[in-house]
């Protein structure tokens, strides 16, 4: 890619011989927001530290604007990193924290003051420059850390679990604010998170990592609609995954015959049935099931169905149509909501 700002080629990091980052290839284009998604221990934080220059690569290379960064120390890379727990400097006030990077880069004093004021307004903390960092709430600290990372105008901004420690409602509000802000500033962003909701809401492109390797990369919609394998499907929260064998437009599964979309790969595979594709019909039709549990989810009811000799099935039902606990019902499958996964 010609216009790629950040490029990783074959990037590998080993801790005690165990690869934490395993031959990773990744490009981030100018102005793009990329979110790396993965469970803890999948190597996503190491990825950021390698790009920042805090973690040397064992092999492979990192380039910024097409220039190899191997011999460039962290403080000359011109990237910003917002740490998971913010790491604000305790002995400086809010303004001192935000101005730190500009001081290091020798911005003129007047510009520093202007930019501190401007950034604090941008992150919603106008006039907070003289406050001590110890007096800030978690959300405020997060905003100060963001302002501090943005202040020296890094060519690439990296966020490590940016909203990890905040409570849910604040997180949902901030993720929208962040996306808006980055869009307005045209910032190139590489973020990592273990929260799929956060990743989907923030990113232009999602990269799912597993054991130091990239499992899948695509737009949030692509990843959501067509997870490539069982790991990605389960990580996204889908539990209706079974081993199956596809023949023509039908898959043979422990749940019986399940229709698959046209043009699906043939032969043995893992099969995902989204809860929306599990249709409840009258007892006696389709697959015989009993309702083992039901959970109210606000917009719908998640129903756990047990059936003999096969894993449980999860179905999503409209509030009015949801069966009661213990009801005997039948189940049919909707091919549009079935995905054949690679093994």
């Amino acid at each position, binding site marked *: 890619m010609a216009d790629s700002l950040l490029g990783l080629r074959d990037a590998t990091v080993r801790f005690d011989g165990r690869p934490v980052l395993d031959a990773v290839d990744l490009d981030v284009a100018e102005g793009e927001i990329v979110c790396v998604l993965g469970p803890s221990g999948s190597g996503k934080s190491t990825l950021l530290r390698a790009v*920042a*220059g*805090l973690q040397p690569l064992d092999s492979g290379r990192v380039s910024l604007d097409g220039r190899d960064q191997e011999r460039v*120390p*962290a*403080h*000359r*890379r*011109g*990237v*910003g*990193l917002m*740490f998971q*727990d913010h*790491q604000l*400097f*305790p*002995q400086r*006030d809010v303004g001192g924290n935000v101005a*730190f*990077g500009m001081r*290091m*880069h020798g911005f003129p004093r007047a510009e520093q003051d202007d930019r501190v004021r401007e950034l604090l307004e941008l992150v919603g903390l106008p006039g907070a420059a003289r406050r*001590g960092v*110890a007096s800030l709430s978690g959300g405020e600290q997060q905003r100060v850390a963001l302002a*501090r*990372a943005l202040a*020296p105008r890094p060519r690439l901004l990296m966020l490590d679990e940016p909203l990890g420690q905040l409570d849910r409602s604040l997180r949902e509000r901030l993720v929208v604010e962040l996306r808006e802000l980055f869009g307005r500033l045209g910032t190139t962003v590489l973020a990592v998170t273990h929260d799929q909701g956060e990743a989907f809401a923030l990113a232009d492109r999602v990269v799912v990592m597993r054991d130091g390797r990239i499992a899948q990369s695509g737009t949030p919609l692509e990843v959501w609609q067509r997870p490539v394998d069982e790991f990605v499907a389960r990580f996204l929260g889908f539990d209706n995954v079974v081993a199956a064998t596809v023949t023509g437009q039908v898959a043979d599964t422990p749940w019986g015959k399940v229709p698959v979309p046209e043009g699906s790969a043939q032969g043995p595979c893992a099969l995902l049935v989204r809860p929306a594709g599990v249709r409840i019909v009258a007892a006696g039709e389709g697959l015989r099931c009993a309702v083992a549990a039901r959970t109210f989810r606000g917009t719908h009811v998640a129903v756990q169905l047990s059936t003999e000799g096969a894993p449980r099935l999860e179905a999503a039902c409209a509030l009015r149509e949801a069966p009661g606990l213990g009801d005997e019902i039948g189940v049919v499958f909707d091919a549009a909501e079935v995905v054949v996964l690679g093994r």
Partner: protein
Amino acid sequence: MVLPVVFFALFFAHPVAAIVARGLNVDGSWRFGRIGEVLADSGVRHVLWFTVWQALASTALTLLVALPGAYVFARFAFRGKQVLRAVVTVPFVLPTVVAGTAFLALLGRGGLLDELWGVRLDTTVWAILLAHVFFNYAVVVRTVGGLWSQLDPRQEEAARMLGASRFAAWRKVTLPALAPAVAAAALMVFLFTFTSFGVVQILGGPGFATLEVEIYRQTSEIFDLATAAVLTLVQFAAVGAILAVHAGTVRRRETALRLVDASTTARRPRGAGQWALLAGVLATVALLIVLPLAVLVERSLDAPGFGYYKALTSDDGGIFLVAPIEAVGNSLRYALAATVIAVVIGGLAAAALARRDAGRLVRGFDALLMLPLGVSAVTVGFGFLIALDEPPLDLRNSWILVPLAQALVGVPFVVRTMLPVLRAVDTRLREAAAVLGASPWRVWREVDLPLVRRALLIAAGFAFAVSLGEFGATVFIARPDNPTLPVAVARLLGRPGDLNYGQAMALSTILMVVCAVALLVLERLRVPSRTGGTGGAPLDRSGEF
């Protein structure tokens, strides 16, 4: 890391090795039998026995007197508590020579008690024991009281809600939590009194000699270097054992304790019993700590028109080649040089030890650094005397010899003060600064330095106070024409006559004032600032010595 290792190899390991060689190697062959011969000597056995039992008695007496004090400091809030805390801490940084002189002024010939009731204790063991309590009161109050004030009183309340009586709750809940701290404090007191030199030298009669005093006597009076070397080895082994046990108790100390902010646990005394306890502790402090120092000052003024102080400026006393007052300048110069050396060496060592990837070898060095603290100043001085006297390291005639010895004693204080603070600096804070464009040097200046500056100053202050009062090593190696304050005091005391006695009192008072000023500066630094908050811990921790 390299510099501290070289420093310790040259100025600690090398002298100690020289002592071993001097004691056990005769004409090129090793004679381990000598150890047995020396130990079989009845005089030596008497010294050993006295060293152990006076240390045990001092420790027991100190605990007895200081534990109520620890309780009062931990649990009661009262007016003047800060001042009292400072007063109690004064002896901790006071030179042993000053304490010795002060007790001499109180209990000795022509002392206060002698004048009032004709009671003299200066040739009895009581003078030694009381002076030891004077010194170590602060060790117990700071170590035990510090932990006690952080124990959550609600734990005891929980036990009482479960049916325990007030005493049972204390015995089952608080005592077990305190026990390791008490043990650690007791071990430290034992160590200090076991290696006591200045106090015993000044207050002890002819019949009383600790190992330390005996080593000095064998070296400088009898010139039996071989016996001195064997005694040094015995002391070395004993101190090593005590330090090992101490390291064990410290490690066990704060495990799994619920600690709370000390300021929330103290309250005003209630009821006659608690007020009586407070009064008793105040009286003890007044009698044991304030009175001797006050008498010292009073005796130093016991000549018309500051006569003793004036006499200090004349050089016709004949004891020294120079006027005694010049010892003040010498002491300050030596102490400054020693402080610089100790801070550089100790700071480098602490920085190396604080690194997270520090290996086992480096951590072993940590324990090694503590050795000079316990291995007794006399050993260090004696070692310098016999090890650094030939090329390429012939420092006998160099002024640097004294600061080097004093720095060796000061380094453990610096390391102990700096290490916890350096360890507390989060690596990721440094990384955050690096990513924002700070070069490694600027990271140190912008992140590390502001966080450790206070600890650095405190460490320097401690090293300065320790160097200023250092006696055991300095007395070996200070040149006759350049005595330090403690050495000059000891020499004056060794001479007959009221004038010499009075001058000793006056010099001691000067030394006390200098040390007290250093301490007051430290206490001011200790109060954490509003933004930093990292400065509170170090001095409290130094109480763990």
